């Protein structure tokens, strides 16, 4: 496997992680909505 493919997989995983993080932050904002 070439190194480009490895970077591509890592970048894909980072994107998935960021998407999960953003989802959690959106959920937390929705949770705070009644209080703040």
């Amino acid at each position: 496997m070439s190194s480009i493919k490895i970077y591509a997989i890592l970048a894909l995983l980072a994107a998935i992680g960021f998407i999960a993080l953003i989802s959690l932050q959106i959920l937390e904002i929705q949770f705070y909505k009644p209080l703040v």
Partner: protein
Amino acid sequence: MGKLLRILVVLILILSVVALALGIILFQKRETLKGHVITLARHVTALTPFIEAEQSDDLTVKENRKVSDIFRESDLLDYKPNPKDPTAPTTMDTAMRDLLARVQNQLAHLNDTRDALARRNKEYEEATNTIARLEGNIQQLESEKATLQSQVASLQKDLAEKKAKIEDLTARAEELQATIEDMKDRIARLNDTIKDKEDTIRAQERTIEDLRRKIAPTGTDAPAEKVEQGHKGRVALVNPEWNFVVIALAPNAAVSRGVALTVHRGDRYVGKVRIADFNDQYHLAIADILTDWKELEAEVGDNVFY
């Protein structure tokens, strides 16, 4: 492949920017929430000096123990559950429940106070009505008192008049008593006089008896039916005190003892006399005046008829 990698890098860059923005927004919201909690805890703590920890039975007591003496602001911020018993209430929960119970107690006590106040107000109203009624009674009693005082004054005046009358009557009674004593003395003197008079009467009766005995030998005891009718003489002496007359008999006029003669003055009837005794030698006769037949007082010179 290289093209795909570039797309992923750009996507990751965009996602990281979005995550950073959302992180900033979340930080602001947490700060706001923290401010809310601290402000709430501070103001709840500020309320504790006005919440009584316990109430006394005396409703008028103001210096009851306050919740602020046993409450700390830090208790409201301690929301950490007990690791050994996660279901146990936290310190904040316990403090808030205690505070709620004390507030409920204070509200109940306040309601009791309101009920007591309502009763006091009712009692006050009744007392006010009673006072008004009593004031009316007092005014009535004062008017009655004034009336009675005037009556007392009138009665005292009457009493003074009665006393004066009693004193006057007492003086008069004393005078009458003195008069009675004087009259008794006079009666005693008159009794003495009567006794003297009775003695005199007895003496004069004895004298009359003597005179009768002296003139008896010359008298006649002829019965009255033998006396002839007609003029028998005139009255020579009248003694009204001893109720007899002395008759100067006409010449040849015959009388006898016990004969009732009629006395006239002119044509007027004077009365009757009864011959008690007579003396033919001196032509005198003594006759008792018959008071039952008396019309006029006999006088010297009256004619005597049978």
